[in-house]
């Protein structure tokens, strides 16, 4: 009997379970978003960005359908993207939003569709999805924009869970699904994609980042009795990654799958973001892929171009590079702490003005956004601490992101769309579901300052941000942006920053290089410094910013720019006045909005 008493004692008296030790919990307490009015901190000196969200009266009215209904499938996490491009060449940048649908696909394929909004100027939009014929159904995520056939009209590639699609812009306001004839279908779970001329033949190639191996008909579900729905989202670590795909253009409007030839197979990444950029300044473009919970990829072309083996007859041989994966050796595979982070969106740009393209990657909750400063020679340095983007990003889960000059001072500011992958507000320790987006001002000393609380109402509210893209939508000389949200209306944010600084917007038109100048590097030759911008492929998360170069002039009244085209041609355009310009390869230029 005495043993019985001791046994009761040994069981801990109250039958309590051992609470999870700290190491078992991958989460952190939510930091509630503080309303601007409650913030007593005085605003920092200097120009503060200011943005206003357009309401439905603007004609932009879009709410994405992700079929979020309690199962917490991992498919529901990624949400959608934004494509910003002037599809009708009227000078105004239009907006395409990807959409999801009911799952499984066999039942819900046609239940919803993406939406194309024609920009009518002055912050007005018109839904022209039906007349454009861009009827994209399915569970789509991202999009890439590029004029793959060099006909002067940007085309659209849409990634999906299921069938990806290549929509050819017919130039008359309509689109045509040419996925099969261009041979660009990918039937994996694709996320982001990027157009770029990788082999220098003057035609855009296409890189498709793929995410996980998952079934929509029998999705993997993770039961959790504590969750109100009985489930929580399974972590990506439970899924196998899948290889990305590289398509090389055959220069006639078709593509060749060069994944294996290029040495990109058997990588099994978990790609969420991709950007193509000449990171080492050797004239060839590297491919950087942000992998979720895995080391990033940095594919570096090696050797000379060689013929890609193809099946069937081609008019001309397709040439491509073999690639070495060098992220680890280049210090951009892992964080400074040696962690493979939940890499998602990518911002690419010369944030510190040293003449190289830097990379910023958004990450998971309770982890930091990571900024890799390009030190030249394909060596990066994790400057998250130095740049001060780390601490403010810890209590956010970031997705779409972009370097952009919000106040036209010539320095790249930073914007990040935030929101959790799953509703975990039921967790005892609390994690917010919706989150406020963030805008960081470039302090011109290699650091950023989070100025979100002074940048408008949109930044004080909480959203489920996903894809994000940047463009000067109303052509007022200030950069605006669009964010795709889950479980709520997506948003167009108009830049109302109070600044006298002017913007130079340049649309590049290649003649020997690809038509939209992909890969060109533009330098603004200022009195005190040279600002460098590159027309990179891809970037952000599942989204495509407008294919234009934007240069804030700061105190300059006009600008002299040098364009280094991918073909090797270099042009100098002197004393360009603020505004929007077409720059033709070979030195000619014209007013971008002449067609209006």
């Amino acid at each position, binding site marked *: 009997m005495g043993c019985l008493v001791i046994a009761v004692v040994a069981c801990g008296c*109250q039958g309590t379970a051992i609470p999870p030790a700290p190491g078992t919990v991958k989460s952190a307490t939510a930091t509630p978003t503080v309303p601007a009015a409650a913030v007593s901190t005085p605003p920092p000196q200097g120009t503060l960005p200011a943005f206003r969200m357009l309401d439905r009266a603007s004609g932009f009215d879009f709410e994405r359908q992700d079929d979020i209904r309690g199962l917490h499938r991992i498919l529901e996490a990624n949400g959608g993207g934004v494509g910003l491009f002037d599809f009708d060449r009227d000078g105004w940048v239009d907006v395409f939003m990807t959409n999801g649908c009911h799952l499984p696909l066999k039942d819900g394929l046609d239940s919803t569709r993406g939406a194309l909004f024609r920009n009518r100027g002055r912050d007005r939009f018109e839904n022209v999805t039906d007349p454009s014929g861009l009827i994209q159904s399915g569970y789509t995520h991202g999009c890439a924009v590029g004029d793959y056939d060099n006909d002067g009209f940007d085309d659209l590639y849409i990634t999906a869970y299921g069938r990806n699609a290549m929509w050819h812009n017919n130039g008359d306001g309509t689109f045509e699904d040419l996925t099969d004839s261009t041979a660009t279908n990918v039937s994996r779970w694709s996320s982001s994609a990027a157009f770029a001329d990788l082999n220098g033949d003057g035609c855009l190639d296409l890189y498709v980042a793929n995410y996980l191996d998952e079934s929509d008909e029998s999705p993997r579900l993770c039961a959790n009795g504590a969750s109100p729905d009985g489930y929580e989202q399974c972590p990506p670590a439970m899924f196998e990654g899948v290889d990305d795909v590289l398509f090389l253009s055959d220069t006639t409007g078709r593509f060749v799958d060069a994944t294996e030839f290029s040495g990109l197979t058997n990588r099994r990444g978990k790609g969420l973001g991709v950007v193509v950029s000449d990171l080492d300044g050797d004239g060839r473009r590297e491919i950087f892929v942000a992998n979720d919970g895995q080391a990033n990829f940095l594919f570096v072309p090696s050797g000379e171009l060689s013929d890609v083996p193809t099946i069937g007859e081609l008019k001309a041989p397709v040439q491509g590079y073999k690639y070495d994966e060098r992220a680890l050796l280049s210090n951009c595979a892992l964080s400074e702490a040696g962690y493979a982070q939940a890499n998602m969106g990518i911002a690419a740009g010369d944030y510190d003005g040293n003449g190289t393209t830097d990379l910023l990657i958004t990450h998971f909750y309770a982890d930091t956004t990571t900024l890799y400063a390009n030190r030249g020679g394909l060596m990066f340095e994790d400057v998250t601490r*130095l740049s001060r983007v780390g601490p403010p990003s810890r209590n956010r889960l970031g997705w779409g992101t972009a370097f952009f000059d919000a106040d036209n001072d010539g320095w790249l500011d930073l914007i990040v769309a935030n929101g959790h992958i799953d509703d975990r507000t039921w967790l005892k*320790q609390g994690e917010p579901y919706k989150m406020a987006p963030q805008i960081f001002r470039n302090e011109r000393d290699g650091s950023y300052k989070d100025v979100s609380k002074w940048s408008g109402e949109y930044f004080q509210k909480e959203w489920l941000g996903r894809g994000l893209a940047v463009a000067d939508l109303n052509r007022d000389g200030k950069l605006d942006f669009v964010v795709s949200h889950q479980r709520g209306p997506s948003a167009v944010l108009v830049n109302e920053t109070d600044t006298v600084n002017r913007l130079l917007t340049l649309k590049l038109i290649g003649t020997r290089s690809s038509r939209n100048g992909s890969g060109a590097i533009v330098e603004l030759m200022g009195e005190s410094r040279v600002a460098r911008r590159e027309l990179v492929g891809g970037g952000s998360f599942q989204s495509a910013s407008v294919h234009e170069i934007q240069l804030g002039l700061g105190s300059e009244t006009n600008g002299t720019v040098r364009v280094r085209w991918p073909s090797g041609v270099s042009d100098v355009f002197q004393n360009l006045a603020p505004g929007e310009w077409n720059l033709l390869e070979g030195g000619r230029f014209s007013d971008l909005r002449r067609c209006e």
Partner: protein
Amino acid sequence: MTSWHLGDSHRQLKSGQWWWHNPGMESQSAARLVKTPQIRRTVWVMMSVALVGLGLVIVCWPRTIVLPAGVTLQDRQFAERRFRDLNGIAPSRVDLLSLVGELAVHDHRLQTAADCFHEIPSDHPRYGSAARLQEGQMWLRLNQADGAEQNFREFLSLASHPNRSTTPDQLSAARKWLNYILSVELRFEDRKQVLAEAHAQHAVDVFDSKQYFFPNLLIWNSSAGRRRLSEFLERDPQNRRLRLAHGRYLTVGGDLPAALAVLRELHQQDLQDSECAAAVLECLFEQADWVSFADVANSLPEYSAGESWLLTRMRAEWALHEQRWDDARRDFERLQSVDPASPWALMGLAKAFGQLKLPEQREQALARSLVLSRIRVSLSTVNEDAPEASQKLSEECRQIGLQDAADAFQWHAERIRQSHSGRPVD
């Protein structure tokens, strides 16, 4: 118990008789008072009755057992009945303390329970060890971390004596709770010692091994840990160790100004506390404030083998920043020797090797970092239900030279497989 009281009363009764019949002790006044035989007989009867009554009172009076404040008469009566029902005898004080303590736990009167268990001496052969475990649990539930830790440690110490009977479940519980406290307080070095003993006895599960071999791969700055620490602090706001941990949580949580305020104050209170100095340095490192970092770093004591891992790491980071590449290499290697799976050490070594023009060593360090990064992500899948995950982890550990970890997870994989197959576990 009952017999003790009876015996006691009997002794008192006898002693009264002895006093009464001892001529030397008779006083003059008593002799004068007892004048007649009738009066003497009456007095005799009355005193006898009084003595018998007193004896009965002593025998039956339960308040002779003093129990802690908070224990009600109902508690006592219920416990007595319960004990008699179970054991057929009346309870002793320690019996009552134990049983009433359990009743109080059941009623969520934690302080009363803690007080009861506290009164049970550790050397009590029947209850002593268990009482320490129980008391520790009560203090933990009351957020009294120090008291809890002290009791768990004492329990583990008592359990190591061969004449103490403790069950594996009790041992496991004590270790886990102790590890939990040390984890919340970010005392990884102390935790490693506890886990080392458990590993030496093969008294570990997969989670113990993950904590032991990968202290810096598990996410330790969780909100659950922070929340618990704040509860500890609420109970014991001046506790220096807790405040230090609080400062570190603020640092890794990104609230650097608040962290620095807390840590600076602690540092000023005791400039000799190198653990605190390391926490200050960590915050300044995160702020990339190298000027302030130098102020603190220049006053650090010489390296000693037993110093905190964080301090060693900060020395290494400082050396990297000052481009003292050989020093950085040495310090990161020191860090690696105490935490072989430290990603900081490997990444730091890679930087140092790069600057020392040792490309092969750099590549090796980076390659090991890559494997560690994979291990880190996969750790969440390594659990008691997945022998293949332990097996895979074992192979990855072997790949980068973490032999002890490899052996441990190999053992776990086999153990889990055997338990799943129903075969006895070695």
